[in-house]
Structure formats: structure tokens, C-alpha cells
């Protein structure tokens, strides 16, 4: 099994300036280290810069100051082109491909990891997100939640080492969401992925995370950094337990104190 990726944000600054209405400082000297193999959840108010942070980690955006480093076993590697999975906030499926063809895209682009059968992997990924019967449909024939699940399958299909998810389950019904939460955490641990997961659900953060980082409103500062008090293997019952409620409470307080 390959080693996991760790991510370091070092005094990262990013502002959006050329816009139509003045400058907007989104990140201003942010420091953050994400351990290899950890499941880290980012929690923060809307518009604080969470998506921006993920884009920086994926190498899709560049910091104006500071830098973002990805390391595997102490050696640095480039963010782009490695097996990084990204589930965007919107589905962004290619409209001219069927769902299955969309899910197969990463294989075509990155080449497939040794010996695997792409068609089977695509099918498996679709089954995992409950879309096994929809592979032949075009994106415009799918409901909003189905599109989103499709994009999750696409990100999963080639077993990423670094997995970035930007509010992936916001458009799903609660039962599907709970199921996928469990599935995702299981997979992450099984494949030793490093996960950066953005969510706005405090419950979801508390349930999924090894570590929860809470941000202030823009410019995003870290106003809370919590190691999970729970055992690595999570079970449904956890959600209804007393310690869970307490953890949710402290995350909630951190958000409020941060000024959200």
C-alpha cells in the first residue's frame, strides 16, 4: 500500500482583487498542517474561504504569499496530476457524456493503477453511491442529488491518496447521507487516504472527523482545532450518545465565538 500524503499550509495569503467591487482578503497568513492519513473536517461560515483552501491544496489555485506543500514520506510532490480526488461544491459533470463515462474520466486522464479493470471500477464506484442503474443516463436526466453522487463516484474511482471534498453531501437526503458518511470514512481508513472534508453540518463534522478545524469569517483564521474524542471506528449509535452531543456543543460554541 502506498503512503498517505500530508499537507502543509505555510503563511498562505490569497485575496481576490480584480473583481467588480473592490478587494476581498480571503486568506491572510494562514498556517495549517494536515497529517498524513488523517480525516480532517473544515468547518466555517459561508464565504469564509473553505473552497479556496481546498483549491490551493489541489494546486488549482496559487497563494499570493506563503506556500502549500504536499509531502509523502518526507519528500515533496507536486499537487497536480497525482492521484488527488476532488468533489467540487457543484457536480460539474461533462454534459456530453453518460454518467458512467463521466465516472471513467479519471482513468482516461491519469492512466489506471496497475492491473485494475476500469469498467469494473466504474461500476463499483456507481454502486457505492447508489447509482448502479443509472450509468447510461445523461447528466441532464439526473436529479440534483444524483449528479452530486455521480461526481463523488468520479472522485473515488481511482483510489485517491489525497481526497478533497467540498460539501459533497449537501444535496443528498439524510438517509443516503448517513450511509455515505459511513462508507466514506470506512474507505478512507481502509485505503489510508488523507481526507480534507468541508461541511456546514456540525453533526457531520463531529461524526466523521479525526480532527475538526473551525474557521472564523473571512479572512479565515483558525478559531478552533479539535482532536476527535472518539474511537477510530464509528457506529451509528454514536450519533445519539451523550459524548457526541457534548462534542457537537463545543464545535457549535467555537463557531459562535469565531463570529459566524
Amino acid at each position, binding site marked *: 500500500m502506498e503512503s498517505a500524503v500530508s499537507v502543509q499550509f505555510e503563511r498562505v495569503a490569497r485575496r481576490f482583487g480584480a473583481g467588480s467591487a473592490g478587494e476581498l482578503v480571503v486568506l491572510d497568513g494562514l498556517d495549517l498542517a494536515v497529517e498524513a492519513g488523517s480525516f480532517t473536517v473544515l468547518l466555517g461560515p459561508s464565504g469564509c474561504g473553505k473552497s479556496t483552501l481546498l483549491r490551493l491544496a489541489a494546486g488549482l489555485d496559487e497563494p499570493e504569499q506563503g506556500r502549500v506543500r504536499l509531502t509523502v514520506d518526507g519528500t515533496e510532490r507536486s499537487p497536480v496530476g*497525482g492521484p488527488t480526488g476532488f468533489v467540487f461544491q457543484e457536480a460539474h459533470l*461533462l454534459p*456530453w457524456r453518460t454518467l458512467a463515462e463521466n465516472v471513467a474520466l479519471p482513468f*482516461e486522464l*491519469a492512466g489506471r493503477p496497475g492491473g485494475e479493470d476500469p469498467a469494473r471500477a466504474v461500476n463499483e464506484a456507481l454502486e457505492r453511491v447508489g447509482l448502479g442503474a443509472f450509468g447510461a443516463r445523461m*447528466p441532464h436526466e439526473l436529479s440534483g442529488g444524483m449528479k452530486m453522487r455521480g461526481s463523488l463516484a468520479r472522485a473515488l474511482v481511482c483510489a485517491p491518496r489525497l481526497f478533497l471534498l467540498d460539501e459533497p453531501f449537501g444535496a443528498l437526503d439524510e438517509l443516503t447521507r448517513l450511509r455515505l458518511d459511513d462508507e466514506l470514512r470506512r474507505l478512507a481508513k481502509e485505503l489510508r487516504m488523507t481526507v480534507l472534508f468541508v461541511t456546514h453540518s456540525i453533526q457531520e463534522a463531529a461524526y466523521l472527523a479525526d480532527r475538526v478545524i473551525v474557521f472564523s469569517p473571512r479572512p479565515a483564521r483558525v478559531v478552533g482545532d479539535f482532536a476527535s474524542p472518539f474511537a477510530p471506528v464509528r457506529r451509528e449509535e454514536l450519533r445519539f450518545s451523550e459524548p457526541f452531543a457534548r462534542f457537537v456543543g463545543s464545535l457549535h460554541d467555537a463557531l459562535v465565538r469565531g463570529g459566524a
Partner: protein
Amino acid sequence: MKRLVALVAPPLVALALLLGLWEGLVRALEVQAFLLPPPSAIARACVVHGSVLASGVVRTGTTAVAGFLLSATLGNAVAYVLGSSRVLERAFYPYTLFLQTVPIVTIAPLLVLWFGSGSTAVAVAAFIVSVFPVITGTLSGMRAVDPNLRDLFRLYGASRLAVLTKLEIPAALPQTVTGLRVASGLAVIGTIVGEFVAGFADEAPGLGIIVLSAYRQLKTDLLFAAVLGSSVLGLGLFAAVQTLGHRLLRRWHPSARS
């Protein structure tokens, strides 16, 4: 069946209206036939000169299709190359415009010298006249690709070639079809103009030559019949592009739905 009627009826009704108006006006105002012949006279000319016109349509049509295919392939190839690099686009795109602004009539004699007489030179003329819309259509389609989809491809370290073939070409397809639509008409016009200057009147004359000699002899009805032939050619080529485009886009693009 009903759908077919709904599809075919409106243009036919419009045609009948237009022709009726034309015939009526020409008769009412007693316009001399050599200035503007009535549709009935043009129809008569179509019959009288049927065989000449038919072979003209075939000859001009063959050349126009050749020129159009040249435009479609080379034009898109150029767009793909220029679309792959901002620097190349900046460097060469302005000069593709030259093709568009050079009056073909002036360089047709050169084409004859370079490509020999007859159909080859004429097809090249058709190509030059019709290639620019293909380039500019495809190029602006490529430039309009959703930046989020670009990000997706970058993320997976997609090669330039993969971005081109799997993202830009399909995303630009609707605009490529628009460009080809314009090019289809221009290819026919380019052929006719090419024939004016480079079309040799050996064997069966193309429509361009027929138009010219009809004009010289004041056979305005034959002239209009030949122009009609060229329009039919243009419409045919256009319909082919339309059908192909519809087939390619039907599964996903709003313009091809409903």
C-alpha cells in the same frame, strides 16, 4: 406524420407567400423581364435550360463540397492548434483574418497558376472564402469552456491533448456547428466566385460560368435560375450540416432538444 407537417409546412407557406408577392408586384408594376423576371419566367427557364443547369449544379456542387470539406478539416485543425495556446492564438489568429478579407477575385488568378486550372483552384477559392467562420466559431467555443471543467482536467494532470480531445473539442461542438453552418453557404458562394475567375469553360460549365454568360446575354431568367441552383446547393449543404450537428448534439445540448 404530424411532426413532419409541422416541420415542412411553415417554410412552404412562407415560400408561397414570397413568390406570390413577387409575381404580383412584377406584373402589377410591369417590370421588364430582364430587370427582374417573375418567378414563373424563372421556372420556365429552369425547364428550358434543364440539362445545362443540372450539369452545372453537379459540377459546382462537387467543387463546393470539396472546398467545404477542406474548410471543415483545416479550419478546425487550425482552431485546435490556436486554441491550445494563448501565444499561438495571439500570434496567428489575426492573420487567419487575412483569408477572410482578401477578395478572392483578386487572387483567383494566382490560384490558377499554383493549383492548375479548373476544379482544384476553384475548390481552394471556396476553401479560402469559407474557412474563417469555422476557425472563429470553434476557437470561441474553446475559449468559453467552463473554467470548473478545466480545473477538473488539471486536477487529474490531463495532457494538453486530453484537454483538447476530451474537453475543448466536445465543449466547442455547438459553436463548431454554428461555424460550419455559415461556412456551408460561403463555400457555395466561394465556388461560384471562383468559377467566375478561375473556372474554365471546358466540359460542362459550372453555375458561375452559366451566371456570367446569362448576364452578358441579358437572359436574366436563366441568371436567376442559376442563382436558384446555387441556393439549392447552399441549402443542401446547410441541411447536411444541420442534420449532422443535430445528431451530434441531440443527447446533451439545449439547442438540439425540444
